[in-house]
């Protein structure tokens, strides 16, 4: 597993390719990128600024990667998360998951993203054209994370 928190832009393709480079046992890689948009509810976004809890952010992501590894037969996981100022068009987060087959890779990537949204200690502040404001947490993100608790590890492995 590779977990990286960075304040500079990163290359999604290079990060994703690194997961399977030099390996022939991997049959599936699913990569999810979360990208900074230029508007929210019709309001223009000039930039986002991400704050995190150093130490805990890495540890919390690692705990969820370990849980994903216990639920699905994974062959590699790479998570990169930006902090600091991010402009529209830039990637905020990359979750890339490798497995032998696609289903485990798709499911684990979605599981990790659902937990990252509501359990990893990051906070977004959005800078509009006139004002700055902290992004409100969404109930739907909480619900997305909670639903995985209802799915047993055995179901998940199938």
């Amino acid at each position, binding site marked *: 597993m590779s977990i990286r928190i960075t304040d500079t832009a990163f290359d999604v393709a290079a990060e994703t390719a690194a997961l399977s480079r030099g390996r022939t046992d991997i049959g599936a890689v699913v990569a999810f990128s979360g990208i900074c948009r230029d508007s929210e509810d019709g309001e223009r976004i000039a930039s986002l600024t991400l704050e995190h809890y150093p130490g805990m952010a890495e540890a919390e992501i690692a705990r969820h990667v370990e849980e994903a590894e216990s639920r699905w037969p994974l062959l590699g996981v790479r998570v990169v998360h930006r902090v600091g100022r991010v402009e529209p068009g830039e990637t905020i987060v990359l979750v890339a998951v490798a497995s032998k087959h696609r289903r485990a890779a798709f499911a684990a990537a979605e599981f990790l993203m659902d937990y*990252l*949204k509501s359990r*990893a200690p*990051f*906070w977004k502040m959005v800078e509009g054209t006139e004002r700055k404001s902290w992004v409100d947490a969404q109930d739907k993100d909480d619900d997305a994370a909670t639903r995985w608790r209802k799915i047993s590890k055995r179901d998940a492995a199938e």
Partner: protein
Amino acid sequence: MKVLYFAWIRERVGKADEEIDPPASVRTIGDLVHWLGGRGEEYAYAFQNQKIVRAAIDRVHVRSEAKIAGAREIALFPPMTGG
């Protein structure tokens, strides 16, 4: 013990961290948030909605009923909005 604040809670309190020495009657995270809220105007503003405050003890998420005895580092923050 050391307490850390993040995002708008940090902005409202006006500092990122501080050493605190709460009285023995402050036993849980919920007690701590209530006690902090009584420390002045900026704290009252930061902790006016106690239900929304999330917490971690020694970098692990905890609920408001969690005991704070023995904690080295307590973090208080709004609901997370990463990813």
